[in-house]
């Protein structure tokens, strides 16, 4: 079986650090929101702020990395094979049909991934980022810029974005199990190497090691 090195070291670090931070932010964020009591409000709020700054720092590095390496092109949306992917997830995956998309170094995300990650990057993240910074600096801006909508409106946007992120996280974590083995994608994200079927189009049976 062929292997391809698709996730470089920084990318893997970025992914897992981001994953940990997002989980921490969701946990503390919804405690700050008042959905439950876990760490105590004060600790939750303070951890939330610290984690947010780390994530912002990480994003800055990641953005720089994406543009200097050209990896940003991985997120250019395409309509090609979108329906084939949908059909695979809805039908094919249950009948062991061949995966309609073949990972390469230059195209490591399937069309649905491209769309989903692009959505996260251009919609959810900026929404969280902007509303979160406004939330954090409400006092400095509040008197002038945000006298109208107030903290409530900022919190509303931030919370809405958090729910979108939560839904994404759940779906993403599940879809990570849809590789040729349940842990195949996770392994790839850890080691960087993705196993490839030799001739996916002509080989209906996948190895279940």
């Amino acid at each position: 079986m062929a292997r391809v090195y698709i996730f470089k070291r920084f990318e893997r670090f970025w992914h897992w650090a981001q994953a940990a931070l997002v989980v921490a932010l969701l946990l503390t964020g919804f405690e700050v929101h008042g959905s439950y009591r876990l760490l105590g409000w004060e600790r939750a709020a303070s951890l939330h702020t610290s984690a947010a700054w780390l994530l912002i720092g990480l994003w800055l590095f990641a953005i720089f990395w994406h543009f200097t390496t050209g990896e940003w092109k991985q997120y250019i949306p395409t309509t090609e094979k979108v329906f084939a992917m949908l059909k695979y997830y809805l039908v094919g995956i249950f009948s062991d049909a061949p995966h309609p998309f073949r990972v390469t170094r230059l195209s490591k995300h399937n069309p649905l991934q491209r769309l989903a990650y692009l959505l996260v990057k251009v919609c959810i993240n900026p929404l969280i980022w902007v509303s979160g910074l406004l939330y954090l600096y409400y006092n400095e801006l509040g008197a002038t810029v945000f006298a109208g909508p107030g903290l409530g409106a900022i919190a509303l946007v931030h919370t809405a974005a958090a729910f979108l992120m939560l839904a994404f996280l759940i779906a993403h974590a599940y879809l990570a199990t849809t590789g040729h083995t349940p842990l195949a994608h996770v392994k790839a994200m850890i080691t960087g190497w993705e196993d490839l079927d030799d001739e996916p189009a002509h080989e209906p049976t996948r190895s279940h090691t």
Partner: protein
Amino acid sequence: MQMPMHAAFRTIAVMAAMLMAAAAHGAPDAASAQLLKSTSDHSKFKVLQQDFQSGPEVTKACLSCHTEAARQLQLTQHWKWEFLNPDGRRLGKKNVINNFCTSVASNYAYCTTCHIGYGWKDDQFDFTAQENVDCLICHDTTGNYRKPSGFAGNVVTRDTEFPPGSGKVVKALKLRPIAQEVAKTSRDNCGACHFFGGGGDGVKHGDLDSSLASPDKALDVHMDATGNNFACATCHMTEGHQVPGSRYAPTAVDKGGAHLRGKERTGNPTTCQSCHGQAPHKANLAKLNDHTDKVACQTCHIPAYARGGIATKMAWDWSTAGRMGPDGKPLVKTDAKGRVIYTAAKGHFVLAENVVPEYAWFNGKVTYTLLGDRIEKSDQPTRINHFEGSASDGKSTIWPVKVFRGKQAYDPVNQTLAVLHMAGNDDTAFWTNFNWEKAVAAGMASVGAPFSGQVDFVSTESMWPITHMVAPAQSALKCRDCHASDGRLEKVSGIYIPGRGSDHATWLDGIGWALAALALFGALAHGSGRIFVSRRRT
């Protein structure tokens, strides 16, 4: 140069001994430790070496040196018991009707026990007579100075039977030793009246009672007798006898910085900000500084009032007053702790210690219901006074308040609060005859107000700012005291408080959790399907 080890030790020992000797020499000797801060020893003044026969005689002696003192005092609220509200209405002790003992009018001889004057026994008192100013009530240091109730603020210098014919004798007071020991005012001086507002220890304010005479740090971080040991005047910085910081003229929001010595001072020196400035929390707690635009310092730093072991009154129902016990004598009831909760003279009380304040937006404006204002008996209590303010007026912060709830006599026909003649050695005083109609008739007549002849009782509320009994920082409120549902600020509207459920957009939370649940359910269903087909295949 190398020095042997033992030689080095010896050198150090000698140097240490020299240093210690120098320090001992520099220590203040016994004489300088007793240095008077005042340049005057009042016991040496000839004019004070006489046997005074009355309070005004002492005052005349004081004024023989302190020529301007009486004139200064006669400008004050302490003297006038009157305050002109910015809305143009006449307030002050002399004019308002509260829901404690209600009014000064028609009860002068009793209420003016706490006046800084001598002889205010009716509405004919001469406010211009300088000798009527009582210097000793604020400057006594002996603790022996007393103005007994019922004497219109006069001191008793001859043994006097009071009330006349009662057989009870009020002992004479020797003024000479008191006059010779005068000094700056202390907590005890202010407390002699202010700790006992409302007719007893801690009754009225809740954040002022006799526990503040010598408080520990936990009770009041500033007045802590073994620590900062502030006097009242440390904050209520008085110049020319003008005492700042009256609740009639409150500073609800102070945007100024900390006052610096030597700089000309404007503004109210009693605010927290006047010493602590606008950003009092350290860098590691900087987020707390972001709260100061909306939350008064007192809100977090006075977690509860009446913390000194003395209960304050929370409610007072006059309507049940006048009951006689089985023995035919006025009934008195006490609670399990031996505190009086009912007297025939005053009705029922609710007492409480360690009281969590209520919270309200406050912009410094206070509106009052005065005699003659039309009131109605309804589900809503009549507001004796009310703190104005809102989240949106840009001038308000959230303040801790004591809300005192009463039920008191009013005239249901003329729809006005009533002036009650409570105390006095006469047929109409309520405390003599327990007859409301007579007491109200006499009270209203004394101020020339109309009275229908009918008395009913109306529920009332008054608000008192909570600003004393500041706790040490570690006892201040924690985030979750307010950042939670059903927290302390649950009822404060107009502001988004993160963590407070009632501020949430329920539709958003509904949709958000549904979306997450849908994602989770979808994943579980899809995953189960995959497991199912893969099992069937093998």
